């Protein structure tokens, strides 16, 4: 069986290599396309030529979370995650329809290339742009680290690196001590690429070993090689092709994801005997919480049967959490109370609307007709992705009840489901390309936004306005390399809480930019000071609630100590005031501050507003 597993995985490697070559080809093609005309407008904005498919399938909040964090939640907590994600039913309209037209128009009228450009021109104040770019850099860099971890994790599953290290070294990093890595593969049973159910037993044995008696955790070479390869690929193609490379590969990957998910749902649900049978089987192994709100919680928080996705990866962390939980007299864990179900209708909707990476795509849209078509495409796409993903993971819980890393449920299902097929490994490769592609796409789009923030919004704006094109190019490449290096450095000891970090950054961005976005697009009376206040109040509220939540129990102000641990728990969790997610408070504070400060300050100059809100003199209004 192990040998079967490896054979299967070599097949998937072929599919993945083809996929990666295609991606790099897009990078090269994009470079040729952007080499025409202005570097800035071409490299960072694709000459404003995005069509419907590109806008629909790349401007959204799909990320490593879509294919790893979200499936892990369904696998661990059950059907209630359908309510958690339900906000996506309106996301196509809210994320593209509310700001889309106006952002596309305003960015043309002002000549803006980046979101901070737009803010600056709209409010005629460079401080608005500067604060905007600093907030973008903060949240995007933070979330990038989590995305790189996801990318490396997928690489590790896809490529049989443990096998490589144990036998023939073929990878560039393979000369590292093979004995060490073999030991790593053996000791750390959780990281074995085998999907045998025996991993449960092995992991249990590992978990029972007293923490103190164990040697320092072995270096996970498979993860590191995965990380290095992933970084090289994604930074490489993004650097060469810029925004268009990011968009094209994103589009290509999104289509592959759709095909992969649709095929997988067609295999997985029948294999589990249908959805109802799968549900009953899963409930038998878990409890009624799996089919009902507020969601299934394993009897003990560190149970091997159903760990929350944040508790994995590091046994040491699990042990620390166990101690912490015992000290706190094991507070009640509730996954998704109604107050959080309510909150996530804000998270997805305003997270999409307030995402700077999404806003840039709106600015690059080529016409309103394109925007309309892209919203419809996205609506169809979301239904075909998210609902089948839920079905796959419910079937997954029935078929593979003891997966140690729920983050890996989709790739593992793909390998498992196709392992008996002739040529099935190529199909597995396709399905595996989905999470890999999602992560690459996200990282790539963030890289472009971060580089444009550093080069244009900070360097060019404040340091050297007349920098020549060669300087700008070099600086752009350099920023991407530095971000890649930082991501590798921080991931050598990978941070936990992939999904928690993504949720945090989504909430922070939304609270920082959703309200200012609406003010920019629709409110004549909005002022520069009001917009700055709105951005700062929103992001400070979210960051503050997370910061307080992160305090050790002893240091927590008594008023904030909560009896219940909501959502996935873990050390990185916010304070949920009244059970409501920080994003709702952040949006509220952002709106209050934006309106109050705008009204308290001098109205903006009528001439600027008129240029941006009234019909252009030469273009007669249509009616």
């Amino acid at each position: 069986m192990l040998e079967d597993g490896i054979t299967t995985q070599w097949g998937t490697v072929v599919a993945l290599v083809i996929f990666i070559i295609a991606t790099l080809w897009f990078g090269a093609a994009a470079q040729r396309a952007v080499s025409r005309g202005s570097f800035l407008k071409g490299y960072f904005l694709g000459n404003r030529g995005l069509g419907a498919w590109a806008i629909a399938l790349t401007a959204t909040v799909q990320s490593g979370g879509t294919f790893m964090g979200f499936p892990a939640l369904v696998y661990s907590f059950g059907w209630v995650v359908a309510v958690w994600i339900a906000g996506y039913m309106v996301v196509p309209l809210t994320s593209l329809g509310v700001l889309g037209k106006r952002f596309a128009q305003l960015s043309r009228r002002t000549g803006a290339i980046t979101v901070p450009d737009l803010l600056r021109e709209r409010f005629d104040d460079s401080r608005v742009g500067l604060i905007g770019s600093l907030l973008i850099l903060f949240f995007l860099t933070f979330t990038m680290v989590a995305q790189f971890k996801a990318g490396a994790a997928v690489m590790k599953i896809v490529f049989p690196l443990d096998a490589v290290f144990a036998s023939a070294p073929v990878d560039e990093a393979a000369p590292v001590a093979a004995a060490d890595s073999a030991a790593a593969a053996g000791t750390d049973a959780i990281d074995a690429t085998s999907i045998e159910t025996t991993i449960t037993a092995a992991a249990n044995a590992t978990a029972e070993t007293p923490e103190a008696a164990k040697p320092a955790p072995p270096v996970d070479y498979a993860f590191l090689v995965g990380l290095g390869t992933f970084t090289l690929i994604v930074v490489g193609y993004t650097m060469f092709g810029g925004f268009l490379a990011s968009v094209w590969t994103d589009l290509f990957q999104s289509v592959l994801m759709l095909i992969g998910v649709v095929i997988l749902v067609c295999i997985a649900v029948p294999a589990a005997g249908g959805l109802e049978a799968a549900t009953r089987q899963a409930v038998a192994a878990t409890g009624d919480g799996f089919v009902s709100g507020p969601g299934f919680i394993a009897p003990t928080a560190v149970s091997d049967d159903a760990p929350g996705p944040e508790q994995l990866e590091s046994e040491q962390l699990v042990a620390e959490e166990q101690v912490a939980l015992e000290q706190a007299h094991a507070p009640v864990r509730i996954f998704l109370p109604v107050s959080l179900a309510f909150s996530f209708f804000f998270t997805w909707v305003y997270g999409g609307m307030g995402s700077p990476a999404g806003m840039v795509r709106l600015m690059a849209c080529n016409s309103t007709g394109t925007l309309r078509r892209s919203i419809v495409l996205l609506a169809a796409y979301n239904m075909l992705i998210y609902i089948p993903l839920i079905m796959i993971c419910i079937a997954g819980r029935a078929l593979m009840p003891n997966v140690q890393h729920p983050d890996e449920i989709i790739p593992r299902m793909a390998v498992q489901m196709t392992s008996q097929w002739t040529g099935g490994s190529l199909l597995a490769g396709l399905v595996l390309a989905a999470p890999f592609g999602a992560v690459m796409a996200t990282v790539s789009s963030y890289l472009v936004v971060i580089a444009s923030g550093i080069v244009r919004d900070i360097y060019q704006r404040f340091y050297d306005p007349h920098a020549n094109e060669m300087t700008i190019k070099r600086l752009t490449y350099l920023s991407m390399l530095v971000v890649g290096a930082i991501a590798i450095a921080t991931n050598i000891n990978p941070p936990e809480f992939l999904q928690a970090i993504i949720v945090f950054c989504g909430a922070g961005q939304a609270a920082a930019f959703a309200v200012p976005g609406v003010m920019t697009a629709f409110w004549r009376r909005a002022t520069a000071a009001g917009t700055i206040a709105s951005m700062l109040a929103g992001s400070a509220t979210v960051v503050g609630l997370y910061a307080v939540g992160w305090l050790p129990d002893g240091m927590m102000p008594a008023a904030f100590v909560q009896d219940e641990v909501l959502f996935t728990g873990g050390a990185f969790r916010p304070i949920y005031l009244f059970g409501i997610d920080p994003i709702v408070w952040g949006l509220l504070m952002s709106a209050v501050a934006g309106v109050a400060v705008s009204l308290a300050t001098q109205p903006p100059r009528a001439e600027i507003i008129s240029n941006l809100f009234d019909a252009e003199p030469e273009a007669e209004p249509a009616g």
Partner: protein
Amino acid sequence: MPPREEDALLRSARREAIVIVVLWAVALVYTVTYCALYGYDRTIDDMTFVFGFPDWVFWGVIFPWTLCTVFTWWFCNFFMGDEPLGDDSKVPDDFTDDF
């Protein structure tokens, strides 16, 4: 200063934004209320299944999701207007331009 007429795209964008926000609010209230009433603290024994989905998931999530998708199609094809986005020549390569 002679008052200029409000931009046509702005007017249609505002009208569309209001409808979208109302849709969001309706979807939120319906889904959260329905699931809170019928989806919480149930047991598998009193659960029925619709197309394999637990009853509350189907009526609380899958059904409104389908309606929203149909609404989105209608909205984009029959409600949203098309307007020119304007001149795209104002892209300064440095900051010497006055715009």
